[in-house]
């Protein structure tokens, strides 16, 4: 539940526990009070009501997308 969307980290502001994220060309500062692990530029995070909730596992996302592609290739001859 609860609207939450992936965004890319474009600036780090460790002194105020916040980061600036970009969502398709819209930039916003969000709090990273809830993230313990180190954050870096170009990481993707999920944003909910002004907070980063966690880091998105890029490798996992890529793997999933790759899997969909493979399924598409396998299914094509049938259709």
């Amino acid at each position: 539940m609860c609207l939450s969307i992936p965004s890319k980290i474009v600036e780090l502001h460790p002194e105020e526990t916040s980061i600036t994220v970009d969502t398709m060309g819209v930039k916003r500062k969000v709090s990273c009070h809830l993230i313990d692990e180190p954050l870096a530029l170009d990481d993707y995070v999920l944003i909910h009501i002004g907070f980063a909730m966690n880091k998105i596992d890029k490798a996992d996302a890529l793997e999933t997308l790759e899997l969909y592609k493979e399924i598409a290739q396998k299914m094509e001859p049938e259709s």
Partner: protein
Amino acid sequence: MLELKQLYQGFRDPTTIANLSKQIAQQAAKVDGDIRIMEVCGGHTHTIMKYGLNQLLPDNIDFIHGPGCPVCIMPKERIDHAIAMASQDNVILVTLGDMIRVPGSKGTLAQCRADGRDIRPIYDPLDTIKIAQDNPDKTVVFFAIGFETSTPMTAVLIEQAEKLAINNLYFHINHVLVPPAIDAVMADPKVKVNAFIGPSHVSVIQGSEIYRPAVDKYGTPVVVSGFEPVDVMESILRITTQKAANVAELDNQYSRAVTPEGNLAAKAIIDKYLCIRPEFRWRGLGPIPNSALMLREAFSHRDAELHFASILPTEEIEDHKACQCGDILRGLCKPKDCKVFGRGCSPESPMGSCMVSSEGACNAYYRYGGIND
């Protein structure tokens, strides 16, 4: 290299959805009887309705829209609390946007604002700090709503208020929990639900493991699912595959964002400031034990329910008898079976929880339904 765009487009790809739809049909053909999936979360209801995913599924798969919309399940007396507090002189009531349209027994917060009261819908809870600092002579109340997903943000706000010694900031806590709501739905012997799509943003915070007891207790598959249409379709495929193999397991489709244990930092800060409330009345489902949170005693000096105790109404307010939200939430009937649906009850003047916001089942049917009739 993963582009941000792929995280949107990749999980909305029409070909992938068509493929998943075919695979679901193949698996569903192997299943005797109906697969009745409760998507607990309002966000999933929204995805299913907005993208019309139900139209891409075989006849033996049906959705039951669960109680997972935090504004829908708020009982009217809690909204009356908000209005009572906001109606005091020198009070600023701050809450998240969705809340201000929902009617209590005496109108909405939006109407209260139109009467001249200071009610501020915000997007970011931390904005409340500035409001409280800018208005030292006013009492500022943060009317906190939301499921597990939105809870740690309130906890951070409490922490900031404590650290900065902002003494004019109080909290009215209405944070509710998903697992007890699942129990409440399943407690009815007539209930028809036999699989769950688990709200994954809840699990981003609390981990996928919070649904394991439901899998064990009810023998139903639970698949923690992302919110993009591909995520939801893949989760339905995973449920259908489990049904075809006649197993019931906990599965995590949204592994790019959800771990078994969740966000430990977020869990720690919630635990520091909030604890389980012995009982909370859910609109549509009634009182559910241990289903919500409240401030820990050490922070009772910030508890708006104590500070304003003398003016908060105590009467519980039931919905109209004809309203069948409780049955709809349990999957016992559909919105269209309700006598008041679309007649006395509409999004402009909702009589029950499911009509309140666009995440509610009746509201979604009212707006988007009927296209195939």
